[in-house]
């Protein structure tokens, strides 16, 4: 019991000590910066820091920075104002954000898209890795929730993006996968069916903001079913993805 208490105390002490970390300092270069009570433009301004004074930058939430003045006053400053501060060396402090420039240089991408697969709702989660500037490999998992049956799809595809530097960047895709269909329980019990599928598609990626992109696509699937004739599926999807 006592050992536990001691450990807890030690932990608390280390936590408190961690709070007294050395934070980066910046110098106010604008006539003044405004300290809000919260990370948002509506929160009231409780302090201003004049030009030439230093503030410590404690943390960041979205586009707001929590700072501490030399007098120990704490408040939140917008990124727009922080960008007009200087480092102790006199350089302009760069609070560089992920921007459009990083869009064409992205390596990993993950997203969630939804739409219609042969008229039934479909949701897809995917991950992509850029093999080069214009080519990436994707793996995706989809769930189709139809009225009479639901299907799970796993797909692997290659995606070519000929104009990867454009804000609205079109793409073509080609891939193979597997579809597992299980009929709804209220109908007669039928075995799940598993088939190989191949697809080709066309779509567009649009850079939105920070790490986010919007993606819309059309895919045409051919299912090599165990019965003699092949099945064709059409799929329309749109959704959001982020890259890093």
């Amino acid at each position, binding site marked *: 019991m006592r050992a536990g208490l001691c450990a807890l105390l030690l932990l608390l002490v280390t936590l408190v000590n961690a709070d007294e970390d050395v934070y980066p300092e910046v110098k106010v270069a604008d006539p003044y910066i405004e300290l809000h009570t919260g990370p948002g433009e509506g929160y009231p301004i409780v302090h201003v820091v004049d030009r030439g004074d230093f503030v410590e930058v404690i*943390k960041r*939430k979205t586009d707001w920075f*929590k700072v501490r003045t030399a007098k120990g006053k704490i408040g939140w400053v917008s990124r727009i104002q922080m960008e007009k501060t200087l480092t102790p060396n006199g350089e302009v402090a760069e609070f560089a954000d992920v921007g459009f420039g990083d869009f064409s240089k992205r390596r990993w991408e993950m997203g969630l898209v939804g739409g219609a697969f042969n008229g039934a709702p479909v949701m897809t989660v995917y991950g992509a890795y850029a093999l080069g500037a214009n080519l990436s490999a994707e793996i995706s998992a989809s769930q189709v929730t139809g009225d009479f049956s639901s299907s799970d799809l796993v797909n692997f595809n290659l995606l070519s993006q000929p104009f990867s530097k454009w804000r609205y960047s079109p793409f073509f895709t080609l891939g193979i996968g597997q579809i597992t269909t299980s009929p709804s329980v209220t109908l007669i019990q039928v075995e799940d069916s598993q088939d190989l599928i191949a697809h080709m598609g066309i779509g567009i990626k649009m850079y939105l903001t920070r790490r986010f992109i919007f993606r819309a696509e059309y895919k045409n699937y051919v299912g090599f079913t165990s019965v003699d004739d092949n099945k064709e599926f059409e799929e329309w999807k749109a959704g959001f993805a982020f890259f890093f």
Partner: protein
Amino acid sequence: MEGRFRILFLTTILLGMCMLLVSSMAWSADVATSGDNDAVQQQVIQPQVERRTIDIDTIDTEDFAIAIFSGLYSAEDFGTNMVIGARVAYHVTERVFFEAAYAKTDTSETSYESLSGGAPLLSDNDRELTYYNASVGFNLLPGEAFIGKGWAFNTALYVIGGVGNTSFANDDRFTINFGAGYRFLATDWLAIHLDVRNHIFDTDLFGEKTTNNLEFTGGFSIFF
């Protein structure tokens, strides 16, 4: 005899301490003078201002949050039961955030089942309801809450909506969810949530129909 030994012992210790003190003072004085000399010499050669060069990239960003929540989920026709789940959120701007959630609840017997006393409509396994969804939230009314005179906490009333899937009675159903919530930030990194959601999906258990499934939950999230 013993008293004399004690005095001798104490004197030795005292003497030792005195010697230690004197020698240490002499040494520190020596260090101080030599340090001063060094400083003077350095000052002559090159005046240097001490500067802290710290990378601004080291600033801790807290845009992600993980949450666990629990409450009541009212599955239409299948009673109201405890729900438990987890969420991950990413705050894009001060207004907008994305959220992914997964939760699980048990459902109870329908009124028909309990009244008729007949065979249950669903097996125990099929009675479990799970859902996942991805939603977009909007901090509609950000603000502050005050407790007494000395405490202020940041809060937000948000609206949220999205799409997902509900697995129930061995069937997967496309589900739309929407609702509102209240976020109370106890500290910068810990928030308490209250949420009300409606999950809408079609079911054909009793003939095709659209069900509204209300959910009330509370939970807390940790920003990192």
